[in-house]
């Protein structure tokens, strides 16, 4: 359980929100919804439309494509943005491998949020670029 103030304090330490001033963090804490998942619960579902954007506050998630684990995410990591940016259903399941606490923003609100917070968008681009580089390294 966390009040918006506690959530703002937590996310202040995350790279994604590192450039936000206190008022911006408070707005994020107010705008996003806190959600909690038990071990084994699916958070994103492969192939189903209309998903959201998630930032992990605590816990660990497994990214699985057709049941095969492709990556593990933890505190401060985020997911769901790719399908929202592309307007397509997620290509992977995201499953809680132990209890997970996240903040979540519904898909239809993500574009407006990123446009209103260009520094968050820039940090997200950096994270996506890092993932892209990693994938290219594997290939080369």
């Amino acid at each position: 359980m966390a009040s918006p103030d506690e959530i703002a304090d937590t996310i202040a330490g995350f790279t994604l929100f590192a450039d936000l001033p206190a008022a911006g963090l408070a707005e994020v804490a107010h705008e996003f919804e806190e959600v909690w998942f038990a071990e084994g619960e699916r958070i994103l579902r492969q192939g189903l439309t209309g998903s959201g954007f998630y930032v992990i506050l605590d816990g660990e998630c497994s990214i699985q494509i057709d049941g095969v684990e492709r990556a593990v995410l933890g505190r401060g990591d985020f997911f769901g943005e790719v399908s929202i940016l592309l307007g397509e259903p997620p290509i992977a399941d995201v499953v809680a491998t132990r209890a997970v606490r996240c903040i979540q923003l519904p898909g239809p609100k993500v574009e407006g949020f990123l446009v209103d917070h260009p520094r968050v968008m820039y940090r997200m681009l950096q994270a996506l670029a890092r993932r892209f580089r990693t994938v290219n390294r594997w290939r080369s």
Partner: protein
Amino acid sequence: MARQRPDERPFPPGAYPLIVVGSGAGGLQVSYWLRRFGIRHAVLSADEAPGGMFRRWPLFQRLLSWTKPYALPDRTVRAFERYDWNSLLADEPELRGLAATFMDGTSSFPSRPEMEANLVAFAERARIAVRFGCRWTATRRDEGAAGSRFVLETTDGEYSAPIVVFAVGVAEPFRPPIPGIELAHHYAAVRAPETYAGRRVLVIGKRNSGFELANGLLPWAASIVLVSPSPAKLSVLTRSLVGVRARYVQPYEDFALGGGVGLLDAAVERIERLDGALAARLRPTDGGEPMTVAADEIIEATGFAAPVGDLPELGVAVVGQARVPAQTVWWESASLPGIFFAGTLSQGSGGLKKHGQPSNSGAVHGFRYNARILAEHLATTAFGRSLERSPIDPAEVVDRLLEEATLGPELWHQKGYLAWVVGLDPATGPRDGGVVPLAAFVDGLAPAEPTAVAMSVEADAAGEIAPVLYVRAAGRVTEHVLPGQRLHEFRTAEHRRAVAAALRPLGRGLVAVD
């Protein structure tokens, strides 16, 4: 309802197979269905009579959920539930649509006393037994030879059960941790409207309770400013219950027309005394310099928290400032098995929230269905009952799916959250799987048949409503968004073709699709 004398009260302290805590709409509804499934249980309530929050709120004595007494369907049939957000569900025709019978015709929104009378009448006529005046005070877990039991300490003594359903509402005033908040007062402590005559009122919060308050004080207050970090949302624009309801939108129009109402997007940093009045120091979230607003009265319309008592210490995970317990698809604590939730607390099982659309589990017209499904779930998983599941003629599956999409009150009141499902076992043929949480279907938890279909009604990101068919086969679930229809009549040739096309790969033996 006559006040119970202590010696007449049902459910003395002791051991029970199941305990329900609460006598509001949620507690009454879950008790009704548990009894229909023959499950012995005790119902405990700290109140003196049924009705829960409606014994006191809404503040201005008028609900924001409607009942339309003169809808086309008769009030005793299932189809009427679409037009009635306030009655509890029952199998008996004489217990259905009760809210409509208490309304005096001045509004399609029942007054608070009409809603209270509706719930009291349901409790009396359905003979829901409740031990009133029995307050749950503490909880512990006992590991005995017969397994784990929860022990509820109450003002009347100890009760124990392996399963407890809490239907205690979300009614504990939430006070944000703002320095100086003690100078303000909460929505729950608002005085008679006339005592705000000529006063400058600052309302913290821009959700329904903030706007309800502002709307109610428009004839009295000298000025009204509403402040919170995020912009106000309007339900007519979000096309969901997220947002200020049309009934309370007048202050928004006054603001837009420059009529003595202010809306500010800002965080309240602190509240101070200033020149014999109060001052709120604000930090705008939409840019700009810090500012100060002077007021004679500051009211927190910052919502309510769930009165979950010591459950978090026992291991029940709660989320958000409302402290709503995190729940599985079957409304069981996600962190403490055996503890379940009904009524407005069932909103803690969020469902898929596709396109950001929330469930309507926070309101009577949504959670009344959750209560029935919860009772079915407990009956079959914990009490060994088996539910009769009617066969469906393979030639009728397509039509039945489209009939539910067009008329099913569960699908319409719980869009994208509840679904009607049909099991497709080749050995037995199609069977009615009833209404279940959509998340339970897509995650393979219901119905039991590996091959099955589900129909839900959903709103997309633009708010357009359409039926969505889900087909589960060979371990995968595929989603088929069907066409919309201007008047939401989905029993058309176009829809039949679309459903048939989605079901055709299952094979002709299971479902007749031509």
